[in-house]
């Protein structure tokens, strides 16, 4: 595994998922894919910011749809679980929805930072 455990925040990342990905695609491709995932997290964070500001719950749901699957694929299971919950069972009021989206945005930023640390540490 190209990522040393000291660089992995286990509250954010399931290391065995990344280990399996490395077996599937190899270290070089995995490094490239993690960068793509980080870029996607940045895009989703910007879209989520805009959606929260404009109180657009439909856009929030669209972001959750993308996040819940890609986060799970890349081992960001805590973020995946939150995004799944907000996507599949959104709160009934707009305010509660926006509050939940803010929580996820915070989690998303943490996840992005954690994956950036891992990406920087990958030994190819």
């Amino acid at each position, binding site marked *: 595994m190209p990522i040393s455990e000291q660089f992995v925040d286990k509250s954010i990342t399931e290391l065995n998922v990344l280990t*399996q*990905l490395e077996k*599937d*695609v*190899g270290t070089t*491709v995995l490094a*490239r*894919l993690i960068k*793509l*995932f980080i*870029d*996607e997290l940045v895009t989703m964070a910007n879209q989520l910011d805009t959606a929260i500001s404009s109180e657009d719950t439909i856009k929030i749901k*669209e972001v959750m*749809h*993308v996040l*819940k*699957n*890609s986060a*799970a*694929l*890349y081992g960001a299971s805590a973020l995946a679980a939150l995004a799944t919950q907000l*996507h*599949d069972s959104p709160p*009934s009021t707009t305010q509660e929805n926006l509050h939940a989206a803010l929580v996820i945005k915070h989690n998303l930023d943490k996840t992005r930072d954690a994956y950036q640390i891992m990406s920087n540490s990958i030994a190819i």
Partner: protein
Amino acid sequence: MSDIIDKGLVYIVEDSIASGALYASQLEQAGFQCKHFTDGYSALVGIKEKMPAVIVQDVCLPDISGLEVLQFVNKQKNPANVVMITSNSSIDIAVEAMRLGGFDFLEKPFTSQRLISSVESALTPKEQVKVQPLVKNRDKNQDFVGESLAMKTVFRLLDSAARSKACVFITGESGTGKEVCAQTLHDTSPRNTGPFIAINCAAIPAELFESEFFGHVKGAFSGALSDRKGAVEVANGGTLFLDELCEMELNLQAKLLRFLQTGIFSKVGSSEVLHSDVRLVCATNRNPIIEVAEGRFREDLYYRLNVIPVKLPPLRERGGDILLLAEYILKQKSDSNAKHFTGFSDEVKALFCNYDWPGNIRELQNVIENTVVINDGDVIEKDMLPSSFGLGAVKHSISAKSVHNTNEQSVQLSPMSVHDIEPLWQVEKRAIENAIKSCEDNIPLAAAYLGVSASTIYRKIKGWS
């Protein structure tokens, strides 16, 4: 890279860049060439320019529905096989996609192995698939004849289902021909050169279920004297038919679900992960929705299996097929018993048409075979029929229908003004709430009585709030 054989071009239509890139990387490692589209319209343009060998398609896209892309593909010359990707919340769309001609669906999250296996299965171009149209009179499937409207519907459904790998769930009373139906489906599918393995879940002792399914290794349990392949492994590349599916124990249902989701399994007593590519056909004579409602069958497994439901009608509802089948069976039994019967008397024909046939086609076969073996002559007369044959029975469906009609007539709908008309959602809401109340808040049971799935009820309740 130059050593890797090019297995074909795969288009991946997935709005997440990171997810699509991952799928592409996994498939490229397996020898495929991949192109990734992040929305439906660009995929349509790509498909128009060059049709790939396989399309891996998300059902939910930002611009158009995945079903529209599927329908577009199927209208093209030499259409590719389409593997749909779905999440748990959109599985009903995936099921619809199968009915529209999708090849297979994968529920997220899925492993690399599952993705590769599905794409490899989908490689056979549609125009090379030798799908034989269902021939009504086939020596192999002698009972699968029918000209009634009910059976024509079944034949049409099976013709569509034959091309796909999607799971088929056959329901119907005992003796209606579920195994024959499954065999016919296999024979007309691209898998007809592979094995057809039938398992009767009611006939296997509970303690041997897992071993029958997944096999075992030597020493796995007392009596396991050597390694044994299970039905799942033996059926690799072919069709696995699970009859009396609702008899399966809950813990084995969980393992079956895992196999369906991942394509991988382990033999009893072994940790080695094995892979098998089977097309699953299931059957039961119970009502699966009631079994789910009463907790004997897993809801998630039911929805995973019930992709293409086929309901075989009871013989009493097949009209002219009763005599069609009777004549066909009479010829078969006469030939095999060296007898010379050529038909039935008018009295026997009338008896057959008015009889309830609780045992369906199996009972018809038994009655005719019994008569042929014991008697001689050219025409089957009434006094030749077995004494146990229900000579006084009339069709229950007719008398039941009369009762039902009487009940309907007794509920007179009084004329109402336009001011009395309620919005449909309110009528529906009241019906659902009353059903839930009557079932003591048991929503799955209420759903079963209402004739809908439990997830439909949950969705409607969420929609009201």
